[in-house]
C-alpha cells in the first residue's frame, strides 16, 4: 500500500506540489489527470527520488516503509517502477545487459540470488513475445534509434521483466498511435493483479478505455482537487477542466 500524506515538493526553489494526499491499496489502479503544469510529473519523480525534487513537508510510505529515506535504486528494490515519459538512450549498452544488471541489482537488494543467465534469457524472451517485441531489439542498445512507440514498448518489456509491485506510468501513452497505445495497455493489464498497485498519469482519457481504473483523480496546482470513478475521466473529456470549475490556479 502506498500512502502519500500532505506532500509538498519544491523544484528549483519553486513549490510545485502543495499538500497532496493519495492512498493506493494493493490491487488498485488509479489514474491521475490534470492540466499542464499541475505537478503530475513532479509527483512521479518525487515518488522515485529524483535529484532536485525536494520534499519539504509530508510523507511517502510504501508498505509501511518511509520511501523518502531511500535512494532511487533502493526504492526500485522495494518494488517501485517508473514508466518514463521520455525514455533515455544509453549507447553501447544492450537492452538485455541493461535489464539483467538492473534485475540482479534489485535481487541483491532484496537478499535474493542473482538470476541464472539461462533463466534470464527465457524470461526476457517470453516477456518480449507477450508484447510483440522483435527479439532482435533486445540486442540493440537501450532505446538508441527507437521510434517513440518502440521506446514505450521497451518500457513495458522492462516493467514486465522487473515485475514491480507498484508501477507509476508517467504519460506513457502520450504521442502514441493506436497500435502502440494498445501495446502499452496490454503491458499494464498484464501487470494488474490483486497484490499490485498501478498509478497512471495521463493527459487523455483514451488510455482509460483500455485500462479501466478503479479511481480517477484530478490534480491541479499541486493538489488533488477531485476524485471519482472511471466516469470522472469521461466527464472531464466532455467538459474540460474549465467546465469542471478547475483552473490552473485552483489553489
Amino acid at each position, binding site marked *: 500500500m502506498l500512502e502519500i500524506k500532505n506532500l509538498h515538493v519544491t523544484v528549483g526553489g519553486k513549490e510545485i506540489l502543495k499538500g497532496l494526499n493519495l492512498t493506493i491499496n494493493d490491487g488498485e489502479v488509479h489514474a491521475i489527470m490534470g492540466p499542464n503544469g499541475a505537478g503530475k510529473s513532479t509527483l512521479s519523480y518525487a515518488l*522515485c527520488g529524483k535529484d532536485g525534487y525536494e520534499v519539504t513537508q509530508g510523507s511517502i510510505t510504501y508498505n509501511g516503509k518511509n520511501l523518502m529515506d531511500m535512494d532511487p*535504486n533502493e526504492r*526500485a528494490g522495494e518494488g517501485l517502477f517508473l514508466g*518514463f515519459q521520455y525514455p533515455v*538512450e*544509453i*549507447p*553501447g549498452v544492450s537492452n538485455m545487459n541493461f535489464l539483467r544488471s538492473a534485475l540482479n*541489482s534489485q535481487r541483491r537488494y532484496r537478499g535474493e540470488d542473482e538470476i541464472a543467465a539461462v533463466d534470464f534469457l527465457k524470461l526476457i524472451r517470453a516477456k518480449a513475445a507477450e508484447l510483440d517485441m522483435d527479439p532482435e531489439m533486445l540486442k540493440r542498445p537501450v532505446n538508441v534509434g527507437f521510434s517513440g512507440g518502440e521506446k514505450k514498448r521497451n518500457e513495458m518489456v522492462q516493467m514486465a521483466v*522487473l515485475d514491480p509491485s507498484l508501477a507509476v506510468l508517467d504519460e506513457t501513452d502520450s504521442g502514441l498511435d493506436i497500435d502502440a497505445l494498445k501495446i502499452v495497455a496490454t503491458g499494464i493489464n498484464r501487470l494488474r493483479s490483486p497484490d499490485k498497485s498501478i498509478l497512471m498519469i495521463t493527459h487523455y482519457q483514451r488510455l482509460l478505455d483500455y485500462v479501466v481504473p478503479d479511481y480517477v483523480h484530478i490534480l491541479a496546482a499541486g493538489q488533488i482537487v477531485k476524485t471519482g470513478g472511471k466516469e470522472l475521466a469521461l466527464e472531464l473529456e466532455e467538459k474540460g477542466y474549465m467546465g469542471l470549475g478547475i483552473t490552473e490556479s485552483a489553489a
Partner: protein
Amino acid sequence: MVATQEAKQTVQDVTGEYKYGFVTDIETEKAPKGLSEDVIRFISAKKDEPEWLLAWRLKAYQKWLTMEEPTWAMVDYPKIDFQDIYYYSAPKSAEDGPKSLDEVDPELLRTYEKLGISLKEQEVLAGVAVDIVFDSVSVATTFRKKLKEAGIIFCSISEAAHDYPELMKKYLGSVVPVADNYYSALNSAVFTDGTFVYIPKGVRCPMELSTYFRINEANTGQFERTIIIADEGSYVSYLEGCTAPQRDENQLHAAVVELITHDDAEIKYSTVQNWYPGDKDGKGGIYNFVTKRGACRGKNSKISWTQVETGSAITWKYPSCLLIGDGSVGEFYSVAITNNYQQADTGTKMIHIGKNTSSTIISKGISAGKSEATYRGLVRVMAGAENARNFTQCDSLLIGDKCGAHTVPYIEIKNPTAQVEHEATTSKISDEQLFYCQQRGLETEDSVALIVNGFCKDVMKNLPMEFAVEAQKLLGISLEGSVG
C-alpha cells in the same frame, strides 16, 4: 660475475657516495642515484651484456645529453630531476616484500577483490613472499615448452641479447631510433627489463603471449624495452600489463616498444595500464612516458594496438604505425580514463607510406573529477601512398563539470587519392541517464560503470575475451566516487 665486480670497481672509483651503503653491503644490488656513463656501464655489466650493446647504450646516453625534455603535451608536472632517480635496482628479494596479505594496503586488496582475483594471485601481485609452488609456475612451464615446439622465441630482453644477438642487432632501435625523442633516448641508455618475441615464418602463435607468464621477470621494470617480430605470414597476440594495480615504487616510467611485421604477418598488441594514479588530492602517482611504434614492413601486414589506460598520474603515449608495405593495415583502439587529478595526453600516429594502406583510429576518452584528457593524433599520407584510407573517430565523455577533454588531430595529405575521415564527439553522462539506471535498480556507481562501458564498447570488443571482462570491471573501479 667478473664483469659485475669490475663494474662495481669502476663505480667505486668515480662516485664518492659509493662507500656509503654501496660497497660495504655487498648484497645491495642498486646502482648509485643519478645517471652517468658509469651507471650505464654498471647496468650493462650487471646484465653481462655484449660489448656492442654497451656501446649502443653509451651512444644513446650521449644523444640524450644533447636533448631537451618535450613540453608540447597537455600535461603539467613538476620538473623531473633525472639525477635523483635510481636507474638500476635488482628485483627485490622475497624478504623485502610483505610477509602476508595482512601487511598489504587494504585499499589494494579491496580492488583485487572487486576484480575477482584469487587469493593466491593476490599474493603474487602484491609481492607477498610465496614460498610454495603456485599453480602458474607449472602453467608457465608447459606454456614455454609449447612455444619452443613452435619455434617461437619468448624471453627477456637480456636473455635475447645473449642468445639471439643477430636478431637483437638487426631490430633493436630499428623502429624507434635512439634519438627519436627524449624518453626513447633515455630508455635506450638505461633499459633494464623487457620482453623479446620472435614468431618464425608461417607460425600462428598458439596462445596469447603475456608477461604474466614470464615469472622470472614479474617485477615491472622502470625502463622496459619490448621487441616483437612477426616474420612472414605469422600471427601473434600479445598482452601487456594487468588489470590489477601493481605495487610499484618507481615514479618515472619510460618504456619503448617496437613491433615489426613482415609480409602478411599480424601483431595484435593489447595493453591494460593500471598503475598508481596518485591519491584523491593528486599526490603521488606514476609518470608514464612511453614510446610505442610498429612498422608494417611487409606487404599486407597488420599491426593493431588496443589500449585501456586507467592508471598513472601522467600518461604520455602514442602507439603508432608505419605503414610501409603495400596494402598494410594499422589499427588503434584506445580507452583512456582520467579521474581526480590525472592527466593523459595520448593518441596515435598513422604514417601511410605504401600503396593501398589503410588505418583505423577509434579513441574513447573519459574524464572525471578534475582530470584532463587529450587525444593527439596524426594521420600522414606520403606522396607515394596511392589510395590510402583512414577512418578516425574520437569520442569524449565528461563526468562532472571540473574535468576537461581535448582533441588535437593533425592530418597531412600529400597524395590526392587519399580518403581520410574524421569524426569527433563530446558528450556528458546526463543526470537523466543516471536517474533512469537508478530507477531500474542500479546503484549510482554501477550506473556510471554501465554507461561508460557502453561508451567504450567499440574498443573493448577488440580486447581478448578474458582481458575484456576484467577491463570492464576496472572501468567501474577507476571511476569510483566520480559522481554524487
